[in-house]
């Protein structure tokens, strides 16, 4: 998929913004593009871009995050490095915002410069299997709240429908009518349908915008012993 110079992922709490952002950054980095990922989550102290710092850096992506990320200091802090988006015009940036309109406030300080940016996408990530974002009315509300808080308008949507580990293709397919209706009601094109890698081949035939993702379940993996979260 073609990424703009600056791509912002925003959406409802727990919609999968971080997973999508990390996968997009890895995809860009692997293609050789100079990319920085900004952990701008001021809502959730857990499961954030910072968790994937080693993975991202190993693949050539730079991570910008607050020094308080992943510590016991539960302080919502916007990383100072976010300004690099405007200081380094030759570089691509992916920005992962915190959930809902509260998370979108992190953009406020930069709204004028973001609105002056020629190559920018702000994408609404949603999963219709999540509460409060399962229908068009809920999605419209989230869109309006985030736009009001951030001062930046969305340019497209990302369908990240999933039921965690249990997701099957039929679960994804079942969301298409709602996603289509949401696209029309919100006036935003579907830029991407995020699909876990195991389902990608099956889905790519039908969905030109399918994007293969590695999915991460840090807590579940801790239970199964398949993933060593930093500090665990």
């Amino acid at each position: 998929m073609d990424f703009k110079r600056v791509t912002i992922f925003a959406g409802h709490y727990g919609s999968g913004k971080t997973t999508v952002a990390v996968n997009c950054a890895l995809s860009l980095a692997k293609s050789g593009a100079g990319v920085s990922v900004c952990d701008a989550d001021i809502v959730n102290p857990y499961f954030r871009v910072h968790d994937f710092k080693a993975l991202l850096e190993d693949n050539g992506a730079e991570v910008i995050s607050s020094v308080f990320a992943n510590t016991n200091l539960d302080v919502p802090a916007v990383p100072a490095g976010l300004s690099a988006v405007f200081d380094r015009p030759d570089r691509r940036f992916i920005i992962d915002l915190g959930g809902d309109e509260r998370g979108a406030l992190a953009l406020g300080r930069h709204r004028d410069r973001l609105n002056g940016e020629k190559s920018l996408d702000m994408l609404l990530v949603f999963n219709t299997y999540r509460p409060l974002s399962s229908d068009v009315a809920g999605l419209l509300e989230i869109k309006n709240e985030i736009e009001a808080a951030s001062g930046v308008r969305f340019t497209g949507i990302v369908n990240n429908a999933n039921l965690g580990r249990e997701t099957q293709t039929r679960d994804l397919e079942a969301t298409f009518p709602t996603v289509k209706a949401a696209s029309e009601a919100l006036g935003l094109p579907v830029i991407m349908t995020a699909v876990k890698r195991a389902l990608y081949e099956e889905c790519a035939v039908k969905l030109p915008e399918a994007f293969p993702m590695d999915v991460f379940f840090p807590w579940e993996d801790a239970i199964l012993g398949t993933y060593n979260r930093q500090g665990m």
Partner: protein
Amino acid sequence: MKGEARVKVLMKGNEAVAEGAIAAGCRFYFGYPITPQSEIAAHMSKRMPRIGGVFLQAESEIAAINMVIGASAAGKRAMTSSSSPGVALKSEGLSYLAGCDLPAVVVNIQRGGPGLGGIQPSQADYHQATRGAGHGDFHMLVLAPSGIQEMFDLTREAFDLADKYRMTCMILSDGVLGQMMEPLDMSEKPAAELPPKDWVLTGTENHADGKNKRRIINSLYLEPTELEFHNIERYKKYAQIAASEARFENYKTEDAEIVVAAYGATARIAKSAVNLARENGVKAGLFRPITLWPFPKSALKALAGSARAFVTAEMSMGQMTDDVDLAIECSRPNILCSRTGGVVHTPEDIWGKIGEAAKLVD
């Protein structure tokens, strides 16, 4: 690409707790933010106004539980939630709820302690929940979910148990379960048959004909013998609960020589450890208490007949391990597998202790 799509939703444990309460008819939620339980309050703040309920962010944890006392005295299903330091603040209210024989649901999504501790998961409030929730002689029913479905189901059921026994039912969970996401089935359940709330404060309602007695809810008794009477009556109720409400899950315990006792998220990890042990030829099993008070003593004691040693795994320096020793009457070795400070066990941590236990009895 065929087949029916499931009607499941993907939820965080904290959201599942909130939805479980709503499904139980709770329309009064009073809270105060603290990581890692803030999603309960955040979810309630969005949901309650849509269903004609009340969400109120109180000025403190103590204020929130006192609001629960008020709502409960008026006969309404009410809930508050917090995490470890915040639950400590609520202890006065928990004691007053017990003294007033009021039903309430209180949720603790445990984090590291003591003091401000940390925001990562913990199970170090076991003693607080089962023994020391507040001053005076009293108990709370304590339920320990082990997955997102149980976060929903047990919270929904907690309201029935609270109403049935006119006491606080606590959901004792942890940061892992609060934060992790799993698919959830929120199918409706038929309402339980419960005793009428003939003690509810209704102001002057139905008093005009002089038939209704004045109702008083308090925890102050002027005569010591009167207070003693109420305490004894309450403990008769507790004895009845201990005999009928203890719940547990056994996993591969039939032929187990080593039994791991664990609850909550740690029980899930222990299950992986038991499977690891089995792969390595050690007959291990898991005993998971679902009620922490009453602790399922007799069920665990029954396992001491065939098991040769026990391992207690908990995210604390050793609290539930006391109840394990009491239940098995110290008849078998019981090795503690402890992680603390917000560090979560790995299956290998627990498998290591299972191995130690196996050597001990070899």
